[in-house]
């Protein structure tokens, strides 16, 4: 028996062209098993289909071929309960306060206000946003807004957390610290995490396994196990084995990035 938390088999995605444009084969075929509780990163050159992979895995888009299973059930054009998504772009709602943003999904799901408040307070302080609860997103920095988007997803207590380049817009130091927060969050929630990133060092530092994708149409070229301890943090970048992991990732990715650059 396969006890994978999520299972992708032969997943392909082809965007139909608008008007006379030809269709774009963006992804696949991809086969991938996410183990329950693991931290898996996906790296690949830009435009290789990483966001597309997240969309079909989350159920936001249907694959054109292949199947996706989450907790043993088929994912079909609808986001299953238990999956939480944080998007590449800032998607906080500017007309709501930080607190209202964070409680948005719970309120729509009909949870009692007292319970929402309890969960939101806990999550906001976990994400370091407690003192901004009554602020509006425009009053926050980019990093804080991204933390708000993570908080908004975390309050639903997802068992599988999908993150699409959540730190893409942040500077290097903030990224490292956010990485540490993400590790802490992963340890404390016990969730399975799939992180999409284009940053090799980020993938190498955070993950149990790193999937390396080819240039478009993205397929998985290599799956690298890191063997890091569960209570790791960003200081792992100074370990000698860290260099070995990034070197292996780069040796696969280098050629793909060159192909990707040539076609863009």
């Amino acid at each position: 028996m396969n006890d994978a938390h999520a299972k992708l088999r032969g997943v392909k995605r082809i965007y139909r062209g608008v008007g006379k444009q030809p269709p774009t084969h963006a992804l696949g075929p991809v086969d991938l098993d996410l183990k329950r509780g693991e931290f898996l990163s996906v790296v690949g050159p830009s435009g290789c289909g990483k966001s597309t992979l997240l969309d079909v895995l989350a159920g936001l888009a249907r694959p054109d071929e292949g199947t996706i299973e989450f907790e043993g059930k088929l994912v079909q054009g609808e986001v299953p309960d238990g999956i939480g998504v944080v998007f590449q772009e800032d998607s906080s709602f500017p007309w709501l306060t930080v607190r209202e943003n964070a409680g948005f999904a719970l309120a729509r799901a009909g949870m009692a206000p007292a319970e929402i408040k309890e969960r939101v307070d806990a999550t906001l302080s976990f994400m370091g946003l407690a003192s901004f609860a009554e602020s509006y997103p425009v009053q926050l920095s980019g990093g804080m807004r991204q933390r708000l988007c993570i908080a908004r997803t975390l309050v639903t207590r997802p068992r599988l957390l999908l993150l699409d380049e959540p730190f893409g817009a942040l500077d290097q130091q903030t990224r490292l610290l956010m990485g540490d927060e993400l590790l802490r969050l992963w340890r404390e929630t016990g969730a399975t995490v799939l992180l999409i990133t284009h940053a090799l060092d980020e993938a190498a530092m955070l993950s149990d396994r790193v999937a390396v994708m080819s240039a478009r149409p993205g397929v998985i070229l290599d799956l690298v196990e890191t063997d890091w301890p569960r209570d790791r943090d960003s200081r792992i970048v100074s370990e000698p084995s860290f260099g070995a992991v990034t070197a292996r990732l780069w040796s696969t990715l280098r050629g793909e990035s060159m192909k990707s650059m040539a076609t863009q």
Partner: protein
Amino acid sequence: MKFDKLLVLAAILGVWQMTSLLVGVEVLTPPLGTFAKIGRLFADPDFGGHVWETTRAFALALVLSLAIGLLVGLALGADRLAAEVGEPMLTAFYAIPKVTLYPVILLFFGLGFAAKVAFGALHGIIPVALFTMAGVRNVKPGWLRAARAMRLTKLQIARSVLLPAALPELVAGLRVGTALTLLGTLIGEMFASQRGLGYLLLQAMERNDPATITALALLLTIFATSASALLLALERRLDHARVVA
């Protein structure tokens, strides 16, 4: 704040009084004379009927402006291609002096109530549609994706994401649409009607009766400015969340 407004009011009354002394009270009736005239207008048993006529025509025209403008704006805003074709057409149509279309309206609706309602709506529909379009286009695709990822139903997405995202523009459209619908209705009354405030205004112009003209102008101004100020205040409150510094 309150003091400021009183000051502005006093200044307006002062300038008004001075101007009418300068150009002569037989050309521009001064404030006191105008207030007295308004009192006499309301005492006239016929006046209520004219007010009621205009109110009815305006209300109906406004409902039509909003309903049709919203539908057109939503349809064009939801589809990028339709918006690319539709927006320049609307903007061009908006720029036409609507009075030139008046004969066409009369041909369709004849003289009377229907024609002025149609003329009022003609003025209001396009701004409402344009603002609605802008509102719909303000909705970031990321908000919709996030809402779907949080497992909201279609109805919940419409209510909790689309509506609040587009609301400031919708209220702006309501404000501009209200002002222009009133304008259109009054113009309609001036040319093709035997009833209503527009008709009274035209009659007073023909009789060369500045007191009545000034009194009616003041009444309409008060109505239009308070409606506009109310909606503007609402708009500012809704926008607060986006512009607070």
